[in-house]
């Protein structure tokens, strides 16, 4: 928190003629402050005057401009944001300009809750979300996993029904970084709220995940997505787009990625559920995989794999 203000060039509010009528209100931390913060002189100056505005309830243009400074000093001060909104409403200020201010604040503080909340409120007041997809896209260029930006985008899509083109957008992000878990999550979100996971969509998405895995086998998100999509399918998991054979091919070619083995175990578990006659041979192969994971391929999670082995033996053993 803080700003890059140069104390030598800063014109203190206490020295500004047009603020001479205002009595600054110092912060009252009590006689024995517990965790006393070492505020800069500029910070103290700005906030002494902000407190004065709140005390007198002044909702003027100069008060609005003061909140600019207060927020630049501390973008997380939600009281200032709230007071700013009060002023905006009172003055009937141009909300398009406010969107610009908000965007600038977001660029500097992209992981701050308050700036995104403010943006949402202004968009709600305007009833205009036409800039939001571009804004979030811009933030994703800096950080494609920014949780706040994804939340905001989801809110926009849901509220203003702007799902058109979202899957293509997700595509471009995954082209950039196929490991972007947020993008995979967005894919699921978009489909769930548009077409839903119909048999055709399930097939399409399974192929999509398979292609991503072909590019990078050790990609947790793609496997997680694959598993999530497969869950929407009623029938045997291994039969969707020949998943059983596809996995076996990779295995036979020597791939021992824990994600692959884990998925094969899931497929086998599903098979043993549905076809009791398959249990004996499939169980042995599956338990061996668990052993291999515990001892070799995913040793850090050996307790988990031992558990899975016990659990499967118990469920499907003789």
């Amino acid at each position: 928190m803080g700003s890059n203000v140069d104390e030598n060039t800063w014109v203190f509010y206490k020295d500004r003629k047009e603020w001479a009528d205002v009595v600054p209100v110092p912060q009252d931390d009590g006689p024995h402050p517990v965790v006393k913060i070492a505020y800069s002189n500029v910070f103290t100056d700005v906030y002494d005057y902000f407190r004065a505005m709140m005390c007198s309830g002044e909702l003027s243009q100069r008060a609005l401009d003061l909140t600019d400074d207060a927020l630049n000093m501390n973008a997380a001060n939600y009281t200032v944001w709230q007071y700013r909104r009060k002023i905006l409403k009172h003055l009937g200020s141009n909300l398009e300009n406010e969107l610009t201010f908000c965007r600038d604040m977001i660029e500097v503080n992209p992981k701050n809750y308050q700036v995104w909340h403010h943006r949402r409120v202004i968009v709600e007041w305007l009833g205009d979300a036409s800039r939001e997809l571009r804004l979030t896209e811009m933030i994703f260029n800096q950080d494609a996993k920014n949780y706040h930006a994804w939340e905001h985008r989801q809110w926009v899509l849901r509220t203003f029904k702007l799902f058109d083109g979202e899957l293509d957008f997700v595509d471009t992000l995954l082209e950039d970084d196929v490991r972007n878990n947020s993008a995979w999550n967005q894919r699921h979100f978009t489909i769930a709220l548009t077409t839903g996971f119909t048999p055709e969509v399930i097939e399409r998405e399974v192929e999509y995940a398979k292609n991503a895995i072909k590019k990078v086998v050790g990609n947790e998100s793609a496997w997680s997505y694959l598993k999530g999509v497969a869950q929407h399918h009623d029938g045997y998991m291994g039969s969707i787009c020949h998943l059983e054979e596809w996995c076996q091919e990779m295995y036979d070619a020597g791939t021992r990625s824990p994600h692959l083995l884990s998925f094969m175990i899931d497929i086998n578990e599903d098979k043993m559920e549905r076809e009791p006659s398959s249990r004996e041979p499939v169980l042995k192969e599956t338990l061996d995989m668990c052993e291999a994971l515990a001892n070799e391929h995913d040793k850090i999670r050996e307790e988990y794999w031992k558990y899975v082995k016990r659990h499967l033996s118990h469920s499907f053993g003789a």
Partner: protein
Amino acid sequence: MSGIYWGISAIDLLGQLDRMDRSEIVSFIKKCHDTTTGGFAPSIGHDAHLLYTLSAVQILAILDVLEEVDTESTVRFISGLQNEDGSFSGDKWGEIDTRFSFCAVACLALLKRLDAVNLDKAVDFVMKCQNVDGGFGTRPGSESHAGQIYCCLGLLSITGQLHRVNGDLLGWWLCERQLPSGGLNGRPEKLPDVCYSWWVLASLTMLGRLHWINATKMNVFIMATQDSETGGFTDRPGDMVDLYHTLFGLAGLSLLGESGLKPINPVFCMPQYVLDKLALSVQIMAV
């Protein structure tokens, strides 16, 4: 307010609570109580918010002076923040987040006033935030995130509803957070951070699956985030220390059974003896 909670909890885990000036802290907390809304502010003269209301009540519980809380007004503040769909806003301005669901329920549990809100709806909303990978996010549709998972599981544990969760599936997602370095991340393909030692380990503890994490490697990672010159813990080795990461580093170590630290409650992130004194128990999944 939250800074005090992090500091107090950390120092109590270390068995050095009497180094703090209790009366100063209590006096500060009282000044942060907003009598209009009933909630607590992060500092004097600021607006009340659920986050700081929980922190305030947690501190007072640790200091064993819960009677200093004006329970009625605080309960009024919290219950007034529950929405139709069972979710909670952080304050009257309406931001919704499963963190706030947890804050509300945990705070009411400490005040023995869970009757003040609609728990069924609160649980329903949390379940709407569950994703296909078994995890939970901020709001329905939001990406699964270890911090949000901790909050949702915490609420389910307090309300005795953990059976709604697939422990194997979520336990797996959680133990997948462990990277080769031994550290934990909060979502797939992100960097490790010591605070996830808390969010993930506490979550796994609630699910009865703490042993799914490699404790030795975890321990090495947490210890590496200590600053041997200044003391304290940081998010990852080499960065600046702060109170937040210090508490969560210590809390993670406590869960792992580190000697020299008091046992910690996995739901409330407060020393266990405090919850015992309040006769507050939490649900832990049996495996």
